[in-house]
């Protein structure tokens, strides 16, 4: 019992009475004190994070924006923006282009026959994910510029799904949500 006080002390599991007894034992019992110090030093090594980096896995889907569902006013706005962009593109020198980086999109859909992704980087066109064996996962790696990206998964051509591991979201104009990856990714 007394020996286990050391781990309870390390894990902050001692009651107040046990803490009193523990401190008394540390004071009086030299081998006990040495074991405490040994295990506390070990704990520093043990609790040191084993890796500096922690992956930010991409997972699930969200509602999809369909170009066909744009209303006429929205099409007019799109054309206006496109026109302005074209004029700017002709008159301004292009900014230095940043190198693309690989983004891995993974979603768990064991019952699906087809999983696609649609986003700003595909012009909201659907791109098929690849089934990962019999694991139930679907995945695709896309080489994308390190800018903000918005996307959704489409399951079996109908159901849209947002990515639960990507906290950034926006509501689209059609009752759904798009996931948002900030510039530079999620790390």
């Amino acid at each position, binding site marked *: 019992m007394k020996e286990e006080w050391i781990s309870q002390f390390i894990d902050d599991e001692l009651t107040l009475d046990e803490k009193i007894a523990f401190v008394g034992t540390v004071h009086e019992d030299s081998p006990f004190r040495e074991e405490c110090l040994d295990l506390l030093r070990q704990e520093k090594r043990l609790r040191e994070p084993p*890796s500096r980096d*922690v992956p930010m896995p991409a997972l699930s889907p969200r509602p999809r924006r369909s170009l066909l569902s744009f209303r006429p006013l929205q099409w007019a706005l799109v054309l206006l923006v496109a026109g302005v962009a074209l004029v700017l593109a002709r008159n301004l020198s292009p900014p230095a282009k940043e190198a693309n980086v690989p983004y891995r999109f993974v979603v768990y859909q064991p019952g699906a026959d087809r999983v696609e992704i649609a986003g700003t980087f595909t012009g909201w066109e659907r791109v098929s994910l690849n089934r990962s064996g019999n694991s139930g996962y679907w995945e695709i790696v896309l080489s994308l510029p390190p800018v903000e990206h918005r996307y959704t998964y489409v399951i079996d051509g109908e159901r849209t799904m947002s990515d639960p591991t990507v906290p950034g979201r926006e509501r689209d104009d059609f009752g759904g949500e798009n996931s948002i990856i900030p510039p530079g990714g999620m790390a």
Partner: protein
Amino acid sequence: MLIAMGDFGSFYLRHRKELFHYLLRMTGDAALSEDLLQESFTRFLDRYGREDPTLPLLFTIARNALFDHWRKRRPLPSGDWSGETGGENPEEGVIVREEARAVLRALGTLPEDERDLLSLAVTGGLSYREIAAVSGLSEGNVKVRIHRARRKLRDLLREE
């Protein structure tokens, strides 16, 4: 427009690191830990949704995912608790700190249940009561086994 992350988004950002390090301590394999991290959050969402996520439930799901993986892959890989990524190109994966590899190797030689309990205690911020709930053991049993694991680990690290 970015909207609020919500409970689950905050929960994910707050706990993915400790869950990943728990899995790394359990497996010694960064690439496998990354896959299990992803699977754990996916299972969580699939089965429990976004409302009121709890840490003990997350660790319960992660342990189940890990044990499912081990059941499918028996026998367990042994003798290579180097913390390498295990992938074809380790440069692309998470790199385990050099100074942590001895600890991972020593953890890898502990009995699976003791490694599990100690990893839960040092990684997840779980109380003994929560670890008891996650592991299905009594709180008293958890207390005894965690201390036993620490002492074994000390002996193993002395031999390094």
